[in-house]
């Protein structure tokens, strides 16, 4: 197992470098640059600025330099948004804000999503099931900015129960977390429903019935444990994405999180921030996938992750 994890981490490092290279190239394919705007500086000033940040060199050299510095833990400084501030510090400041909301949203999504999925599967074909399915399908198909705006309209404007923007009290967390958790909650619910339905019809459920096990034991001990694998697969990458912040939700509620910052950095071509946030997200996704793969083994003893593949 230890050998396997070491191998996976080595693979992850290579993958991160590949991601960095691709992002770098794609980023530079987009026309424009950090110092080009409506009020363009004079050509001399522009040239001096580009020379300062090494942007005057040919792309392969720039890439080589970036990877070299990256491997040494230096992700550069912001070019525009917080001029000359190290990118690492910016992420350190923004990530906890996004992660806090993300973590709460994730907990809501899992702790409500899985039970409603089970409920829906248990009462399959009844009105309870139909109602839950409508809600879950709605949650998957309605974009988060619609949900966020509707929540804002209802609770802040009409009812005036909750504050609308910022993050100064615990009440401020309610709406963003609700908006952010709705889609994953519904998706988890649907996954849980379908895999529970599959599990309920398995022979070992009949065996448990024959033993005389209670309905509760049959649902939770036998069916749910076996139904968790697809949910787990979805939860890995989801965790990574939700922790780094929902761009739309952060924008609607004016939350100074990483998700909003990332999109803004793309708009102003703040190259080091784009690079660093992408790499950070990629590393998080890779890490979560590794965790999920290890969890598979815990959930299902038939899966041997150290074998197979290459």
């Amino acid at each position: 197992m230890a050998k396997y994890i070491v191998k996976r981490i080595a693979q992850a490092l290579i993958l991160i470098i590949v991601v960095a290279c691709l992002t770098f190239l794609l980023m530079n394919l987009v026309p424009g640059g950090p110092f080009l705007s409506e009020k363009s500086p004079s050509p001399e000033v522009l040239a001096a600025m580009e020379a300062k940040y090494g942007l005057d060199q040919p792309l392969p050299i720039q890439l080589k330099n970036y990877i070299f510095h990256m491997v040494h833990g230096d992700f550069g400084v912001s070019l525009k948004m917080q001029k000359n501030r190290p990118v690492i510090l910016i992420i350190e400041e923004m990530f906890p804000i996004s992660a806090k909301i993300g973590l709460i949203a994730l907990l809501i999504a899992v702790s409500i999503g899985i039970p409603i999925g089970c409920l829906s599967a248990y009462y399959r074909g009844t009105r309870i099931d139909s109602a839950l399915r409508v809600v879950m399908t709605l949650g998957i198909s309605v974009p988060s900015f619609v949900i966020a705006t509707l929540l804002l309209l209802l609770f802040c404007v009409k009812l005036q129960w909750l504050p609308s923007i910022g993050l100064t009290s615990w009440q401020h967390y309610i709406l963003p977390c609700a908006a952010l958790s709705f889609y994953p909650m519904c998706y988890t619910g649907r996954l849980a429903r379908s895999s529970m339905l599959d599990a309920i019809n398995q022979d070992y459920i009949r065996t448990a019935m024959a033993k005389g096990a209670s309905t509760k034991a049959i649902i939770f001990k036998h069916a749910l444990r076996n139904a968790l694998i697809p949910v787990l697969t979805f939860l890995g990458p989801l965790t990574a994405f939700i922790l780094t912040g929902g761009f739309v939700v952060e924008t609607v509620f004016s939350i100074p999180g990483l998700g909003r910052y990332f999109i803004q950095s793309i708009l102003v071509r703040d190259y080091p921030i784009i690079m660093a946030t992408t790499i950070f997200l990629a590393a998080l996704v890779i890490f979560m996938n590794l965790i999920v793969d290890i969890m598979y083994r815990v959930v299902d003893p038939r899966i041997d992750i150290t074998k197979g593949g290459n």
Partner: protein
Amino acid sequence: MSDIKDPEVLLEVINLKKYFDVKIGLGRKNYVKAVEDISFKIHKGETFGLVGESGCGKTTLGRSIIRLIEPTSGKIIYDGDVIFDGDKRKNINMTAYRRKMQIIFQDPSASLDPRMTVGEIIGEALDVHKLFQGKLERKKRIDFLLDRVGLNTEHANRYPHEFSGGQQQRIGIARALAVEPEFIVCDEPISALDVSIQSQIVNMLEDMQEELGLTYLFIAHDLSVVRHISTRIGVMYLGNMVELGDSNEIYHNPLHPYTQTLLSAVPVPDPEVNRNTHRIILEGDVPSPINPPTGCRFHTRCPYAKDICKEKIPEWKEIEPNHFAACHIL
């Protein structure tokens, strides 16, 4: 067995029916009549063989009897206690009977929870019925059961997928035996296994029956095995029981045309005999149990069908002593 006039009845099934709903388009429903009006008795200590082709309702019948599937109507009496009554819809708690009635499933790998170790699978049954005092006794029981079915006691810590099909079925049997049942439904326990393993399992089931005084309902489509193990045999066709009698009687003197057809289809491992036996080949497929034929359900394929067979459901009658059949021409 036929010389015993009135053997003790362990299980009695009266007019049992099981219909499954099938949706055919919006709001419209139809029924699969999987088990239609079946009555029979199983005697203490016997092996009651149940044969019939795939989809005839044998498995549904077996599972309905121990109420793993809720029957639609009819009555089931176990050892004098009514455990299901379609007329009086009162909820009878099955927990006590789950100890007395057990089942061995057809597919051993699918019927064992992949997330539990063998020890947990067997132990759960012990836990539900509180059949032990203290952890040590529980472990002893599990070890004893594993040993009983020819497995190693270390196997308790392994997961079902680590075993071969034959071993998995042994686990299934140990699991069923854990609660010390009186009656076991063997739902095609050997049809998913290699031929070489089949006889081992059959012999083990026979040994246990002798040792523990078990009563079996043995469901199978392999007629030679059923003949070997059964005291009496019931033949099913499309949800109906068409014939019932002592094992030897059914084999040497089959009365119902369907039973005759089934028996003529049994392969004989002797080419000489094989060439000279007349094989009855049925025409057409088994009709759909959603829309079963009127009258005798077998009339669409019966070589002897007459007009009455299409109109009237044949009566279930004792043609010869202890030999029942439902057919107009008898």
